[in-house]
């Protein structure tokens, strides 16, 4: 029976994958054909979604983007034999966009049925956890330290050091908390792991639990990800009857309630405890006093999902990839007004210009690229003059930017950068947890000051005031929400002064 793959990733669903499946079922029945439809994750080439793949003698042949109405003509044209058609992209594994990547975290996404345990095992699943159990917890921890893996949520703190802190901490119980509160605009890699390869995250958490001696794990996801939550909950059910989870370690899925700041690790812990998502002062660090006051490893989805590969191939193999102090690969998310939007995983070091112009293919609108925002709503807006910046934690920081969670949002020349700066302040005001005065009050004042600048009211004085306000936010806030909102604001002023009426 011919196997046909239609993704169930939210990005594919959003552009009609369900209608494609319905049409496919109806049309094959009409023709008396027998096929098996497998719902895979997404390969990350989102401009081709829904990307339908047919398993043929020469490999999995792709067709995309496919509309429900195209199915009849595709079947008539010999789609099931992988015959050429206008929307045929050839053998998917050979696609140049995929061939350019080095996938470690996303090696299975889009390839396997995310809820098939056998598929996962056949594609190197469980090898990392088994290896960890063979070499013991201390050696497993060493592998993570050796790998140079840094927190993929954005802060870039060495993951191995964090795990060691929790391993060394005394506590009658310890927790592994997975931060899946992926609130940054322009990012969707966590969602793609949960939808496309959920067992990888479960395995990564099980490795972390084994390394530090934790017994309970929580995945804190978002209410904005209903589909990812459904798939991940099913994956947990399946994993409970496997070697991944059991008496020694279990994982519970929790869902947030629409608060951006709960993506900040200490606010997330408060929220898990059933409180307002307000940021905690550090110290104490979560590795010493985290969830319910117990030693806690809190890591982003991508940090945890990187662990199985690292254990399987060794810390050195991961550290051999990358650039400067940024080791390994980064799943980069190309988003917004970009022709080839999607997920592109490569070793650190690729330049921003290469990512936007070459990999991304420029804007979707066909107009010139004017600005890109890297690292989510708290990341700086970079103009084309900074496109030589290598994708690396330090290189971005040196230019007052951040790579954050790896999202790049592209804007064409119709963007109004004063409106973007205003939005950054507005967003901070909406999402501020209220604990720090500069963030709570300063963000609202920031909106007002930008309005005055745009209106031309005492422009120079108000620009000076805005800069001063940004300095106060940066220095006077406990977490990145207040502390980093100045990045998008001040980068917009610095690189695009003409949008603020400055000549």
């Amino acid at each position, binding site marked *: 029976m011919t196997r046909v793959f239609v993704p169930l990733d*939210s*990005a594919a*669903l*959003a*552009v009609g994958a369900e209608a494609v499946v319905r049409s496919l079922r109806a049309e094959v029945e009409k023709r008396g054909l027998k096929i098996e439809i497998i719902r895979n994750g997404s390969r990350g080439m*989102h*401009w081709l*979604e829904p990307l339908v793949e047919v398993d043929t003698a020469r490999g999995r042949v792709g067709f995309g983007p496919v509309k429900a109405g195209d199915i009849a003509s595709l079947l008539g044209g010999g789609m099931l034999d992988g015959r050429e058609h206008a929307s045929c992209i050839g053998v998917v594994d050979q696609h140049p966009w995929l061939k350019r990547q080095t996938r470690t975290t996303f090696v299975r996404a889009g390839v396997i049925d995310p809820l098939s345990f056998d598929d996962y095992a056949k594609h190197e699943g469980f090898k990392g956890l088994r290896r960890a159990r063979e070499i013991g917890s201390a050696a497993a921890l060493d592998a993570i330290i050796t790998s140079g893996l840094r927190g993929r949520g954005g802060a870039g703190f060495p993951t191995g050091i964090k795990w060691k802190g929790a391993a060394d901490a005394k506590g009658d119980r310890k927790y592994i908390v997975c931060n899946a509160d*992926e*609130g*940054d*605009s*322009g*990012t*969707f890699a*966590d969602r793609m792991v949960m939808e496309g390869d959920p067992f990888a995250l479960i395995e990564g958490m099980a490795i972390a639990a084994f390394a530090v001696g934790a017994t309970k794990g929580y995945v804190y996801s978002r*209410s*904005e*990800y*209903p*589909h*990812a939550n459904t798939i991940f909950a099913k994956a947990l059910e399946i994993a409970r009857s496997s070697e991944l989870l059991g008496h020694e370690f279990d994982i519970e899925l*929790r*869902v*947030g*309630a*629409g*608060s*951006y700041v709960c993506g900040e690790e200490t606010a997330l812990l408060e*929220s*898990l*405890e*059933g*409180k*307002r*998502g307000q940021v905690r002062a550090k110290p104490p660090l979560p590795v010493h006093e985290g969830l*319910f006051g117990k030693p806690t490893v809190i890591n982003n989805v991508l940090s945890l999902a990187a662990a199985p590969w690292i254990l399987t191939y060794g810390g050195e193999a991961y550290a051999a990839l990358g650039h400067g102090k940024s080791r390994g690969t980064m799943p980069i*998310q*190309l*988003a*917004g*007004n970009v022709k080839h*939007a*999607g*997920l592109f995983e490569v070793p650190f070091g690729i330049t921003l210009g290469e990512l936007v112009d070459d990999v991304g293919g420029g804007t*979707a609108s066909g107009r010139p690229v004017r600005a890109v*925002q890297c690292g989510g*709503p708290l990341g700086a807006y970079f103009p084309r003059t900074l496109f030589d910046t290598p994708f690396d934690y330090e290189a971005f920081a040196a230019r007052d930017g951040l790579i954050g969670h790896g*999202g790049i*949002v*592209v804007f*064409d020349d119709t*963007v109004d950068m004063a*409106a*973007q700066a205003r*939005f950054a302040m507005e*967003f901070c005001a*909406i*999402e501020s*947890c209220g604990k720090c005065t500069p963030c709570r009050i300063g963000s609202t004042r920031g909106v007002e000051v930008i309005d005055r600048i745009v209106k031309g009211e005492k422009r120079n004085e108000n620009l000076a005031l805005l800069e001063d306000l940004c300095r106060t936010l940066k220095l006077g806030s406990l977490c990145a929400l207040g502390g980093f909102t100045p990045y998008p604001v001040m980068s917009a002023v610095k690189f695009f002064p003409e949008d603020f009426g400055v000549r």
Partner: protein
Amino acid sequence: MPEAPTWDAIRVEEIVAAHAHLEGPLLPILHALQREYGCVPRDAIPVVAKALNLTRAEVYGVVSFYHDFRARPAGRRVVRLCRAEACQSMGGRELAETVLKHFRIDWGETTADSRVTIDPVYCLGLCSVSPAALVDGVPHGKLDMATLIDAVERAP
């Protein structure tokens, strides 16, 4: 404006009891209440507070902190329309303005006939197929006015 459904303290206590074994059960309880009633009924707060040995102010503080918890049920169809940067870069602002005007409501409001609620949301992780929205939990991307209205009207 939609009426809050009838509820009783016994049912609320049942919902609380069903989650009592969890560590940090408050958010799961509030989500469960909202699933049952379409909102977190104000009168349920003292019941929850008592069961969890918290003050009413503490529970109210949590309910009011999170954007998701409603004081009144939403309309029959809930649109969560993304306002974040990736959607802005693809005309999300203009789309939102037009669609709100079409339904004659502002952000977070429900149409007078209780048919549609439009909530702002800051990122659905659909940034590669923007502008995007969830209509009753179903993702829709590459939206324009026609496809968004169609998604709202067509949903079951």
